[in-house]
């Protein structure tokens, strides 16, 4: 290399050093701002009457209040939100709520009975995705105004047309769709008959501890503190959901202190972060359950309709291997349809991988060389779970062909009952055992609702009666006992194989205190978070 070349290189080096030198050193997140790194690409709407994706769910408990809510640290306890107290009617068909004195929305408007009536009428009439939850109360656009009414300036009466108990009705009212919105604020932004839906998709009108300050789709969501919230002033001034779609980038951000919380990291990333200085990994039980559904109504593979095949399938799953080796502690083995932590859930896991037993069951039933197609979402962990199932079913002499598809195609197939078997997940919609029981243990053929049991072609009038009896039951202990019986029946005799319950692993900086997350997807609370 000659002198001129050296001089050129030195000049280039100096330029680079100068450029780098003018750049700022990395900045830690401000002390009064909580930065959450996650993908927010799923968000469609932040209107509680419409939003049904994970990101909006993470905000609803922070932005809105309901009349009654589940306790942030103990989800099984019900407590007043905007309601100070409530009284059940003697006929068991309505509850009268007394609203908290002096409660105000973030706008400064007082919370009135009219707001409660407007919120419920609005959600029912809009008929967006989560409306099926309110329909459990028998609420319809044509009857809602007669069921919910103002009693006086501090009382509101909420009734239902469905044959259900008041405990169940209260559980329904804890769902995000039952959030109380500020009528004056929302109505002022209404266009035509949209009840302000277009505006509320990206704005908020609640009384929670935060309000939506800014939202840029696929970029960021900023929540600002609402110091006058009836739930109390939050400890941080704002929460920023920063959209970081790539898990590796999220890991780098939390590691560098440029994010305070990171979600949805892979098992390997969690393992590499655990024990690092400044990092805390918390595992919260999640209500998400992964299961296999067998379409017993599929005539192309007659074995799928044979209860012996369903029974054998339960012994052809490597539960322990999937939960503890393949998915490295992000799941626990759970073999019933109610997740651990839900009222009424049983924790009996009677099945283990036992190919010899499965073979004997199949042989006794005369089932030989069974082949079927397992449809799964083409995303982890389902592709991994499917491969494990393929290997373990092969040990029992059953050939399983994996069909990976995009999630919406999978659900399209399930809705049309156009599949052989599928591995997928389930989330309860509200914090009550009926949320899952009504899906997995209620099937009355084509005449009834198209539940998960219907999707499996499982017609079960007797179990459906039991499920209905459990919803109507007022005594919590008797209700729990009824759900226990139903779970054991489904566990033993259904074309559904429950495998896993998820653990939500969240990575936090060690100076973040007071973050609370419950078992249900909406039970995320930032109100008590502070950074030391």
């Amino acid at each position, binding site marked *: *290399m000659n002198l001129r070349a050296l001089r050129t290189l030195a000049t280039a080096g100096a330029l680079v050093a100068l450029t*780098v030198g*003018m*750049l*700022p*050193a*990395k*900045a830690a*997140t*401000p002390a009064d*701002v909580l*930065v959450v790194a996650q993908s927010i*690409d799923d968000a*469609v*709407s932040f209107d509680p009457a419409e939003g*049904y*994706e994970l990101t909006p769910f993470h905000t609803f408990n922070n932005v809105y209040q309901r009349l009654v809510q589940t306790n942030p640290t103990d989800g099984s306890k019900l407590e007043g939100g905007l309601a100070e107290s409530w009284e059940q009617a003697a006929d068991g068909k309505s509850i009268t709520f007394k609203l908290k004195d002096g409660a105000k929305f973030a706008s400064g408007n007082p919370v009135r009975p009219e707001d409660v009536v407007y919120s419920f009428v609005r959600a029912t009439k809009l*008929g*967006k*995705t989560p*409306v*099926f939850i309110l*329909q459990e109360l028998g609420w319809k656009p044509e009857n809602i105004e007669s069921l919910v009414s103002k009693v006086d300036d501090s009382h509101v009466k909420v009734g239902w047309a469905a044959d259900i108990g008041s405990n169940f009705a209260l559980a329904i009212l804890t769902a995000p769709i039952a959030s109380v919105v500020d009528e004056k604020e929302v109505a002022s932004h209404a266009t035509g008959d949209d009840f302000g839906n*277009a505006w509320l*998709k*990206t704005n908020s009108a609640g009384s929670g501890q935060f309000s939506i*300050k*800014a939202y*840029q*789709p*696929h*970029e*960021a969501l*900023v929540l600002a503190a609402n110091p006058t919230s009836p739930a109390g002033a939050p400890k941080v001034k704002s929460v*920023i959901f*920063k*959209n*970081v*779609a*790539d898990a*590796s*980038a999220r890991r*780098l*951000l939390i*590691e*560098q202190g*440029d994010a305070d919380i990171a979600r949805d990291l892979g098992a390997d990333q969690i393992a590499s972060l655990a024990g690092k200085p400044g990092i805390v990994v918390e595992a919260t039980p999640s209500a998400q359950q992964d299961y296999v559904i067998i379409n017993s109504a599929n005539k192309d593979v007659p074995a799928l309709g044979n209860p012996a095949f369903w029974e054998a399938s339960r012994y052809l799953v490597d539960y322990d291997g999937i939960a503890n080796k393949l998915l490295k502690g992000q799941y626990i083995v759970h073999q019933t349809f109610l997740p651990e932590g839900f009222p009424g859930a049983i924790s009996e896991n009677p099945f283990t991988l036992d190919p010899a037993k499965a073979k004997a069951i199949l042989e006794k039933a005369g089932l030989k060389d069974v082949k079927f197609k397992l449809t799964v979402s083409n995303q982890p962990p389902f592709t991994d779970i499917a491969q494990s199932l393929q290997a373990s079913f092969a040990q029992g002499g059953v050939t399983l062909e994996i069909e990976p*598809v*995009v*999630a*919406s*195609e999978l*659900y*399209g197939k*399930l*809705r049309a009952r156009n599949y052989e078997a599928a591995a997928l997940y389930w989330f309860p*919609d509200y914090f009550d055992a009926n949320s899952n029981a009504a899906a997995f243990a209620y099937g009355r053929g084509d005449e009834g609702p*198209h539940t998960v049991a219907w999707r499996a072609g499982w017609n079960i009038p007797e179990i459906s009666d039991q499920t209905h009896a459990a919803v109507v039951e007022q005594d919590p202990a008797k209700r729990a006992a009824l759900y226990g019986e139903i779970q054991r029946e489904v566990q033993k005799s259904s074309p559904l194989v429950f495998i896993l319950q998820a653990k939500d692993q969240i990575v936090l900086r060690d100076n973040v205190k007071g973050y609370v997350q419950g078992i249900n997807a909406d039970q995320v609370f930032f109100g008590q978070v502070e950074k030391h």
Partner: protein
Amino acid sequence: MLGFINWIASLLIGLLALLLVTFAFTHIASIDPVIRIVGDKASQATYDAKRAELGLDKPLPQQFLVYAGQVLRGDLGTSWSTGQPVASDLVRVFPATFELATVAIIIGGTLGVGLGLLAGLWPGGWRDSLVRVISLLGYSVPIFWLGLLSLLLFYARLHWFGGPGRQDVAFEFTTERRTGMVLIDTWLSGDMGAFRDAISHIALPALVLAFYSLAGISRLTRTAVLEELGKEYVVTARAKGAGQFRIIFRHVLPNIRASVITVVALSYAVLLEGAVFTETVFAWPGIGRYLTISMFAADVPAILGGTLVIGVCFIILNTLTDLIVGGLDPRLKP
């Protein structure tokens, strides 16, 4: 005048064909946008109502005609996945890509031409080998991997540059968005801390994209330089005593600039399409990511709107390149 009318007509026909092909492709995919929006648990009534609301219950040709009619009226429709007008989504995401692509092409173009000159002037030497290695890496290293590696090294280890995103949280949402381009907006705001922060965030993704584009630019420049240097007029110039500097800047560069401008413009067009992987790794909310998310959601209005913008960009860039090249070399006038 007639030429201009012809140009406009061919532009419109080209865009219509682009829309038609994109529309057809979006319907080949087996993604159900209705389930993507209403979810798996929605009742059949809710599903059907949403399907009708999106116009998906109508025959495909009718759906396309309705959409084309809207576009002609200047309405790109509403995105099914963000719930926002596609036009406002594009106004938000395109400047991010435009800014990143522009910075990247300035770096990539300058370095690419420079390296190509070095390699062409000293063929077979160490400079040529070095440029060849750089080009080879640019061609062969997956950009996703390169992005992650550069983040790991320059952001996480050395702390030279900002991390994923366009700004640190301390500056995000404190600057008024006037143009949507964070460098310009922070500069206009007068907050030099925010401006330096914006530079530190754009630098890495821009360098990664620049590296990717300089590979092609340097190879083409090298070839063009070598070709020119072998021509008789250069030999004559040398015989007449012209120095190397004069030969390069007075003779070689003017003669290769048309090819270099064409390849730089093409690279720029590719970057403007949206560097999907780079935008994903660096959490850069540009048009590439927007289109990818829209495609996974079968969000037809967003896909068509994005495609239209990219198509227009391509046509404008091509036309501009033709005009510039034609201005520089009358033989190539369109």
